[in-house]
């Protein structure tokens, strides 16, 4: 492909590797390892989000090598499809914290209903007010729920699934970056409430952030994410005709 003259070995290697999807699988893992190591070394500050850093590392490489997203995804899909099993894996922190969760069932259900409606409803309302195209609003509506569920919801209501994927990831990064300063500013020290809120608003990326900060917050974020995946798939089809 783009090997320089005089570097035939490298060029040969590249032309071989670039035809196999595995190079983008490897690149994704390497970018993640670098981003995660950098974030850890800095003490996991909110802005050093591993997903954000990894995307910023990979996107320019794809652009420079003129690789399409479809080609990239052929390799990266093996990682993408782990999102489903990862959601199932949240069963363990839920099980471990079953006693504390049982004590706070009422706050959990109340916060889920309010948080989930505000997450989807405010996005639909704001986007309608600004006057964004209908298919963009529909792609935006399930933004706070985890990627595999959001894509299904987006498709069901007439959005663009690939756009939804990007908006979901951005939402996760925004939630993960803002949650710690926001909660500290408001002097909210209840790890259960903090974790649950970020799980409802910012799904798995928010949950990953919560696990970085505190294990109880992580478990509650996992509950918020799982319950909101369920509720979003039920309420978005109802909210859309009502708010748009």
């Amino acid at each position: 492909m783009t090997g320089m003259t005089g570097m035939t070995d490298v060029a040969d290697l590249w032309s071989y590797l670039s035809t196999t999807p595995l190079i983008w699988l490897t690149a994704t893992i390497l970018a993640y390892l670098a981003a995660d190591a950098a974030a850890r070394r800095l003490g996991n500050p909110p802005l050093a989000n591993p997903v954000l850093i990894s995307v910023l590392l990979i996107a320019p490489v794809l652009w420079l090598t003129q690789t399409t997203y479809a080609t990239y995804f052929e390799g990266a899909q093996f990682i993408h499809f782990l999102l489903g099993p990862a959601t199932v894996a949240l069963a363990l922190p839920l099980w471990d914290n079953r006693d504390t969760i049982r004590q706070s069932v009422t706050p959990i259900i109340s916060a889920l209903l309010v948080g989930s409606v505000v997450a989807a409803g405010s996005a639909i309302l704001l986007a309608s007010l600004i006057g964004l195209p209908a298919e963009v609003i529909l792609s935006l509506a399930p933004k706070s729920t985890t990627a595999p569920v959001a894509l299904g919801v987006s498709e069901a209501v007439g959005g663009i699934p690939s756009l939804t994927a990007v908006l979901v990831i951005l939402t996760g990064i925004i939630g993960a970056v803002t949650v710690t300063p926001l909660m500290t500013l408001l002097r909210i020290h209840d790890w259960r409430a903090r974790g649950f809120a970020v799980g409802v608003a910012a799904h798995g990326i928010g949950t990953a952030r919560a696990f970085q900060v505190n294990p109880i917050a992580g478990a509650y974020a996992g509950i918020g994410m799982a319950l909101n995946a369920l509720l979003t798939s039920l309420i978005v089809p109802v909210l859309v005709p009502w708010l748009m």
Partner: protein
Amino acid sequence: MVRGAQLPVPGPVLGLAMLVLAFRLWPTLAERFRPTVGVILANLSLMFIPAGVGVIGNLEVLSNDWLALLVILVLSTVLAMLAAVGTFIAVRRLTERRPT
């Protein structure tokens, strides 16, 4: 399974519920899952990267409306967190007897 039964529940969420149920029926199962689950959850961020890189496939839509979308996402996400955290704490104070 979800597709077959036409349930409104997303597949991964149903899987999660079934695994919790399995832990309840066979509590020793949790210990066997622990090492694997630990690795998965410690690296949860990795699994979102492929979808995030999808930004390059949507540059056209995003370049038209990127500022509006960014403002909406920030506002809506912060509002959702405030609504959830506020409700959680208010309801907890109403329902829990011990003072905090």
